[in-house]
């Protein structure tokens, strides 16, 4: 007798049943866990923004956020203003940090005016302007929060990525790479120039902070180029705001 599992009708029924069960299981997992996941992402944004302005628990060599439990309180304490820049209009919005940069980028492509979130933080009498930016690495999205002073000199940066190669491109979120940006000028002779991630720039210790260059990571050329490109294209949009500050 033919094996029952070889029958076409059985195969089709099995496939349908499997799809229904697995689909229901995944849908259930996704929807029941969504509130937790969203909350984690919200806290992470606050941690990222605080990290960029130097509110973190860094130990030597490793990058550590403030704890998720403290994040909302510290965020309220250090972030004085949340702004949304849209064209010439600057409005305050206490939920500006929830603006999805990815969605704004695609809506800008569709011809709409992009909403640019900017966070004004104060720590030890210094004012920080923190902007979220987003771009493309080798495999997937990369993004960053860059804290600047009013002259567009970088005061701190936090980089992250979705799927860069561990040990190579993924190292953009390591201290040795992120800390290189601190003190680096985004402008050159009064004009916005960005920061290049350069190979063989004869300045591996990054002593010259006005050369608009940081040292690249070996084996991560495309990720590095992506970092430079997103800094150039996204931070440029904030230039007019900084011009108006003076």
């Amino acid at each position: 007798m033919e094996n029952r599992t070889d029958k076409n009708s059985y195969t089709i029924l099995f496939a349908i049943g499997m799809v229904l069960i697995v689909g229901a299981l995944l849908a259930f997992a996704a929807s029941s866990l969504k509130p937790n996941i969203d909350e984690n992402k919200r806290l992470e944004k606050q941690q990222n923004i605080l990290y960029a302005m130097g509110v973190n628990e860094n130990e030597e060599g490793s990058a550590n956020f403030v704890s998720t439990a403290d994040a909302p309180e510290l965020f309220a304490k250090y972030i004085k203003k949340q702004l949304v820049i849209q064209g010439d209009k600057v409005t305050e919005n206490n939920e500006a940090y929830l603006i999805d940069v990815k969605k704004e980028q695609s809506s800008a492509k569709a011809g709409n005016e992009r909403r640019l979130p900017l966070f004004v933080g104060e720590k030890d009498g210094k004012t920080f302007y923190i902007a979220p930016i987003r771009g493309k690495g080798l495999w997937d999205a990369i993004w960053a929060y860059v804290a600047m002073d009013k002259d567009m000199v970088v005061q701190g940066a936090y980089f992250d990525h979705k799927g860069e190669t561990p040990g190579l491109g993924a190292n953009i979120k390591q201290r040795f790479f992120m800390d290189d940006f601190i003190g680096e000028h985004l402008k050159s002779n009064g004009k916005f120039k960005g920061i290049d991630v350069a190979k063989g720039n004869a300045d591996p210790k990054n002593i010259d902070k006005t050369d608009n260059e940081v040292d690249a990571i070996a084996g991560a050329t495309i990720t590095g180029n992506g970092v430079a490109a997103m800094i150039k294209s996204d931070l440029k949009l904030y230039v007019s705001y900084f011009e108006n500050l003076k």
Partner: protein
Amino acid sequence: MGLLSKKDGKLITDPLADNNPITIQVLGICSALAITAELKASIVMAVSVLFVLGIGNVVISLMRNIIPSKIRIIVQLVVVAALVIIVDQVLKAFAYELSKTLSVFVGLIITNCIIMGRFEAFALGNGPWRSFLDGIGNAAGYGLILIIVGFFRELLGSGTLLGFKVLGDPIEKTGLYSIGYENNGFMLLSPMALIVVGIIIWVQRSRNTALIED
């Protein structure tokens, strides 16, 4: 192995050496190339595969009598993908930091041919307990090679181990670097992983000539 019979024990010990999934069965090479540039990633991947292969083998083994043979590969793929995605979602909800470290590996685990290979070759024809042992054994053998390769690539390529600068600082020129030692950047690129795996295969077969095929 007091707990296991001799035959069951071999399911765990064989894949560690004489039937290693990477060096003998030559499965899972792609992920061995992709993520062994640093030791930490190798360890994370090894643990993840251990978990997925152990459980996946049991699930497939329990289903072995009802899986239609015509679509068995698709069924295996669905089982492993569903498992990995659920674990990923749960981690995202309850251990967000950990999930960020693992997110890169999700795709790599689903497409890892060791997992499909063990489902196909073992779990479809054996009971759950033996399949579990086989899964653990093969994942351990895979992880062992990953960690060896990761160790040498990170040490020689970046001069660090788990992020610690064990050889000194290449920019400040301390430690080994003060006498002219340089990191070998080539070690960080995928081809060197293949060469390191090749060396392991060479060493293994020269010690145990029974493994050499004509």
